[in-house]
């Protein structure tokens, strides 16, 4: 951590009002979004953490089973919700259409849910609209979206602009401008792009970064390489390791420590190779994002089952990396 009182990169990141965490399936979006939520709350912010494609993961991290559209305060100042387009739609209809009898919303909402499946942009704008709405109403200091995987997030973030262009006139169109204002303001909104340092995820991340840039106008503010197998040796150590295993030293060590040293050599070689391959792909990731976008690395936390322990460690790493 930097000197007490100085503003860190993490502070700057969390000073935004709306953060989207995205990336390919399984790379760690939910873990990282949750870690960012915890870090924000620890900084005294009132946080809304939203699982956009709900699987109940976030709830599980906090030991809360039933989380739905209504935010639940899982710890001080940290609220969690799961996106539900049908509920978002009823809320929308209630807010903007002032449909008088609440019972009428049911069938209309169902029908609309169906239309929104087919009509481009409608479903997406409901998701983004709900998140932007919470920002506009200043209900929270920061809204963190554990967003959908590659591709889909582009249509979500591009939906206000798209709908604005595609729809002639109508209420939805009238509602897009303020959303665009929030989304395109880099001081208010940003995207954290998560990837693992492997070939396909990095390829997809690069493609996604490009599409986010050209199609959404929402700023990419942080690249995160997750599950990195860390390098264990400096260059000098590395060459000495090679010298040990190929030279006369290994038999000496074997005599002192035992036969099992060979297993350690094998394990180390595998580890080194994994780390090297990770490192190579990490470089590709960084260069595809460009030098202007900071990138942090989060190590693979080995041998743990899914859950809270990992989130805690990930949060600590982010804190250290972003001082």
């Amino acid at each position, binding site marked *: 951590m930097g000197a007490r009182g100085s503003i860190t990169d993490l502070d700057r990141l969390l000073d935004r009002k709306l953060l989207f965490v995205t990336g390919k399936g399984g790379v760690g979006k939910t873990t990282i979004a949750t870690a960012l939520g915890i870090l924000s709350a620890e900084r005294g912010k009132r946080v809304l953490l939203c699982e956009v494609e709900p699987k109940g993961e976030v709830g599980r991290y906090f030991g809360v089973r039933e989380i739905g559209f209504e935010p639940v305060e899982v710890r001080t100042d940290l609220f969690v919700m799961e996106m539900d387009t049908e509920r978002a739609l009823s809320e929308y209809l209630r807010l903007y259409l002032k449909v008088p009898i609440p019972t009428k919303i049911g069938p209309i909402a169902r029908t609309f849910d169906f239309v929104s*499946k087919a009509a481009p942009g409608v479903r997406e704008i409901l998701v983004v609209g709900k998140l932007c709405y919470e920002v506009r109403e200043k209900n929270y200091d920061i809204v963190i979206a554990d967003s959908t995987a590659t591709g889909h997030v582009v249509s979500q973030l591009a939906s206000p602009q798209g709908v604005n262009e595609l729809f002639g006139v109508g209420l939805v169109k009238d509602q897009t401008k303020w959303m665009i204002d929030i989304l395109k303001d880099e001081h208010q909104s940003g995207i954290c792009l998560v990837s693992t340092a492997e070939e396909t995820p990095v390829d997809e991340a690069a493609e996604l970064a490009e599409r986010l840039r050209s199609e959404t106008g929402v700023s990419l503010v942080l690249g995160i390489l997750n599950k990195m197998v860390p390098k264990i040796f400096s260059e000098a150590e590395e060459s000495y390791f090679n010298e040990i295993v190929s030279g006369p030293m290994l038999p000496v060590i074997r005599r002192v420590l035992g036969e099992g040293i060979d297993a350690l050599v094998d394990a180390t070689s595998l580890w080194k190779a994994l780390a090297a391959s990770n490192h190579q792909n990490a470089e590709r990731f960084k260069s595809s994002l460009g030098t202007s976008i900071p990138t942090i690395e989060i190590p693979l936390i080995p041998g743990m089952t899914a859950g809270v322990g990992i989130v805690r460690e990930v949060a600590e790493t982010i804190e250290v990396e972003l001082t």
Partner: protein
Amino acid sequence: MKEEGLSLIDLVSDLQIVLVAGSGGVGKTTTSAALGVALATSLEKEVLVITIDPAKRLAGAMGIDALSHVPQEVQLKDAKGHLFAAMVDMKASWDEMISRYAPDKDTVQKIVENPIYESISTRFVQSHDYIAVEALYEFYKEGIYDIIVVDTPPSRNAIDFLDAPKNMEEFFASRLLRWLTIPRRSKLVASAFRPFYLVAERILGSAFVKDISEFFFDFQQLYEGFVARARQVAALVASDKAGFIVVTIPEEIPTTEAIFFISEVARRKLNMSAVVMNRSLPASIFSRAGDEVADKISNETQEMLAKTFDAIGLDPTEGEVPLASKSQLVSKILVEMANSYEGLRDQKTMEEIQVSRLTVREGKVFTTTQQSGDVSSVESLRKLATNMSIYR
């Protein structure tokens, strides 16, 4: 650890269709390709692998690219059969499907040119899932290939893929779809639907509602073709010509999904062929002797280790590093080696927990090992394939 007489190849060699499923990023595409290589190598058969979004270098290595979804032969050395690979192109497959089922050219034109077709063809009602099954059926019907291995698209739930034909059919049969097309079918919207349209037009704008309505009106004319095909596809997947392989990795969440998938396959009375635990760590690395040495190193301080080596005198003539710092360096390296070993061993323990969760449900768990780099050449696929072994 090959068990006598049981290999993944044996399990699927009598099938005509092998569907490879699993949650995102676990290695479905890689496993499909490796399986294709293995099948074509050891059997005198014509094997086709249909992949979806393969990694660029892997696609390059197999000689396929996004521009063509025509199967290309993959050159294999010393193979008994032949391997072909194709890539599913969503947009092209949609276009083809529209032309196949539309009653006339005019309708095709109208659908394809509707402003909402583009976005619909890329995402509505799990279209990716459906297109994958559809593409499979086209190739199957051609009758050129003995075995078709199908990679399935990344989806939120592996199970979506199984429901794709049914969802497609339901979509077409739904009352809501009929409602949507009413403005187009009758100028006078039935009064029962009026509130819906008033609201729709107010929210979406009337031009947009008209576009949607037009589109689905035209689209509905494909109904019969679509539904008939969806049923044939579903029947094929359910027949004993087809079998599923579910892929997972040594992590809790993907394995939970795999278990769920297995139970769904059983519930639907489909044919489960095997489970593949990808990225398994080679068991040969770990041993009791290894554990002991790692323990020894971890329990001693770096200084003590250094002293030991000073005492026995590590060959002072070797290299440029002076002796004193040499033993320091050696002990530092040894500590890192012990850490690597223990880190991987913890990972292996986790893997065994996941495997045991699977073996309870499904006896046949195979492993493919973690490679030290990306799997992006035919050679590395072959290596992966020869390593496929049954877990014990």
